[in-house]
């Protein structure tokens, strides 16, 4: 919410019983009802009645998605099982005070006002299209990210990525039962079929968002920023209609990704990748594979401008960020954009 400060200007803050969302996901309906299914330190997940998708209230920008409201703070006692209803952009918990507890009872009848919050879409930035490339292709076609940048990201993911998910697809030494299972599935499918049945990864892995879902989200992001279309989107959609295929959190993320809407930590990486034009043909590359000496990409921008964004993404969730970037790299690699390899599957 906003309140007037001493000079009469609006400033972000709290009033006694109301929070104002700082951002509103584009797929958050103004009117809904639902039930809180989980509360974490920085997020509350709500299953919306009549939909098998979740909505989330979050306090960290990197967790923003098209089904999320970004809040300055989470209501203190919004507990699992609580009913939430919203009408015309104002949400409240049933008819009861939101965050009442034995020790903190200052707030009654609290509401969240999200009608006027700026929208978050989660679209990845359009990749640049050079006139030369456009003329070659006969149509507008995204220029893939600079290979040097992808190579740098590959090394960073291997060095700083978190275990527990599908990092073993890029680095066999970091494998586990899930990555072994995925690697087996992918390699077998590769040999037998022209296209890999990536949809079989839906729901694979630990975590509330299964690693396979994160991986596929990353692959879908790769398609958006210059990779080839590798995933059979209809097959993934069909898979998601089967209620046993994945968790409701994973299903929500994947459905949004299929619609071209991605979590903020991933769009930040996408923005970095697409902001850097690919090296012109014949551009010099120097040692380490992370330096392009022509165009706007320099060693400094590869190691610095990109680095902080990628590291932040790798730190997202327990292994969600890592698994999404593994998927992103996998997608770029399979589209023959990425220079690294061979991928140890």
């Amino acid at each position, binding site marked *: 919410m906003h*309140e007037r400060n*001493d000079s009469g200007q609006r400033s972000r*803050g*709290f*009033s*006694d019983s109301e929070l104002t969302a*700082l951002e509103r996901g584009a797929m958050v309906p103004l009117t809904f009802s639902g039930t809180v*299914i*989980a509360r*974490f*330190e920085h997020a509350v*997940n709500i299953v919306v009645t009549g939909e098998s998708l979740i909505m989330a209230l979050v306090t960290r*920008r*990197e967790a*923003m998605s098209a089904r999320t409201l*970004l809040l*300055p*703070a989470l209501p*203190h006692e919004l507990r*699992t099982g609580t009913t939430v209803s919203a009408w015309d952009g104002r949400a409240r918990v049933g008819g009861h005070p939101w965050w009442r*507890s*034995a*020790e*903190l009872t*200052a*707030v009654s009848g609290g509401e969240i006002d999200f009608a006027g919050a700026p929208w978050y879409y989660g679209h990845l930035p359009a990749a640049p299209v050079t006139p030369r490339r456009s003329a070659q292709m006969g149509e507008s076609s995204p220029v893939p990210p600079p290979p040097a940048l992808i190579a740098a990201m590959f090394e960073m993911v291997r060095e700083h990525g978190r275990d*527990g998910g599908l990092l073993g697809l890029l680095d066999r030494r970091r494998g586990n*039962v*899930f990555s072994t*299972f995925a690697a087996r599935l992918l390699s077998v499918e590769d040999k037998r079929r022209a296209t890999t049945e990536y949809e*079989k*990864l*839906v*729901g*694979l*892995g*630990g*975590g*509330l*968002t*299964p690693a*396979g879902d994160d991986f596929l989200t990353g692959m879908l992001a790769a398609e958006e920023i210059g990779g080839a279309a590798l995933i059979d989107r209809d097959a993934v959609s069909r898979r998601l209609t*089967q*209620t*046993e*295929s*994945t*968790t*409701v959190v*994973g299903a929500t993320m994947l459905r949004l990704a299929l619609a071209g809407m991605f979590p903020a930590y991933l769009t930040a990486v996408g923005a970095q990748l697409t902001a850097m034009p690919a090296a012109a043909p014949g551009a010099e590359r120097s040692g380490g594979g992370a330096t392009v000496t022509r165009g706007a990409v*320099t060693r*400094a*921008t590869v*190691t*610095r*401008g990109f680095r*902080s964004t990628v590291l*932040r993404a790798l730190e997202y*969730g*327990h292994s969600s960020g890592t698994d999404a970037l593994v998927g992103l790299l996998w997608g770029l690699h399979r589209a023959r954009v990425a220079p690294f390899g061979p991928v140890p599957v």
Partner: protein
Amino acid sequence: MKRIIVRKDSYYDSVVLMSISAEIKKIDGVGEAVVAMGTEVNLTLIKDMGLDSDELRAAGPNDLIIALEGESEEVLISAESKVNELLRKKSSADGQTAYRPTGFESAVKVMPDANLVIISLPGQYAGREARKALQVDRHVMLFSDNVPIETEIELKKLAQERGLLMMGPDCGTAMINGMPICFANVVRRGAIGLVSAAGTGLQEVACSIEKAGGGVSQGIGTGGRDLKDKRVGGIMVRMAVEALAQDPETKVIAVISKPPAKAVIPNVMKTFETAGKPCVVHFIGAESAAGEENIHYAKSLEETARMAVALSRGERYTAQEFELPEEEIAALVERETAGMAPQQQFVRGLFTGGTLTDEAVFALHEPLGGVYSLDPVDPAFELPDPHRSQGHTIVDLGEDVFTVGRPHPMIDASIRTERIELEMEDPEVAVLLIDCVIGYSSHPDPAGAMLDVLQAAKSRARERGGYLAIVGSVTGTEGDSQNVHDQRRKLKSAGCVVMPSNYQAAKLVERIMARRASK
């Protein structure tokens, strides 16, 4: 032997689930442990491991499955017991499981002898908790911002009635009985009592006192509105000065704040005059005024410290703009301006400390003919887009507009490195002015975190045929874990001119720009 545990409709944070998996695998005799939600493919995987049961077949994607392989029944019992223990604890995000009181009452039960309560809650809740603390005779440090002014007044009046300190709201730094609290530095104890409205102001003065050979008896934060808003009326500044006046360890009192509201000045000045001890006063950006004999006006944070140290020793204070001899300053200015290209004409100040920002803005606004800022000297110079500099610009990157959903730049260096990346692409930038605040709660190596980008910024200017001057200072001490000398050395290695204080850094920038203009 194998065992499956199914928890119906259980949503645990991924961090909890992964930590359970890791902890279970540490148990001797456990072969494999899979902790996952019961999605179709996960159930297939678990069945492939040779594990199956009616319970597993009935599981769905919202159920938590824990599949264990162990060499004996005892191992499996032990592992299952560990799982249950870990799930009960619901580990915090970093996997730690330290006990966290759920509210003020339970916190007091844990530490009944504590006489100071630090409160960091969203503003709407903070007032109530602060009131509870004051009512049971605990001093309060209120870290929270966005506390309504009416609440602040009520709390401070309550504190006044009970003879308690009510530091804040929006108080990030204090040093009580030698204990640094929140963002603070390791400073020797001594004869100077500090009262400061804001955080980095107190830090800069305390560190300058340490450097000048003095020490701090107490460092009391009051919150930015205490003097500035006439409705609060300087309640806590007056109380703090009165407390320091009675403190036998304190020989000199130093007060740092933005200029007080006019209505507040008479009462506050009266408190200083009657303190019975020398008072050094620095109202940032305000002209010095004549006062009683015991009141000494300082023109910078650094001068506040030096003046207080001199007074505490009974010495006469001699003002000096720079510590370095004038010839060295002149040589520095020549060196830093020699390679600049004609189009380089603007200063960009990227700060992490709010008071340090204010000091730089006030020092440079007039000499440079106007500095754009989020809190400018002249309203006409309010920066329209906080994310885009124009002309001479100095910004506090700790402002809310930069930190929504992100840690403060004193903790997360990337907010500033990203901004430097933007600035370095602007060919009109001549000087980059920075701070570097170390101490408790700050980034473990803020200078190190900037090295790459500072070097890159220099290179970028060189590529364009120019030269980027980078000027800064480090707020910290040798005792801080980051070590002030190490931080200075690192900044210098990136080509930064590191001045002894924030004020001297700003004054050097003034000289550089004057020389630049004369060419």
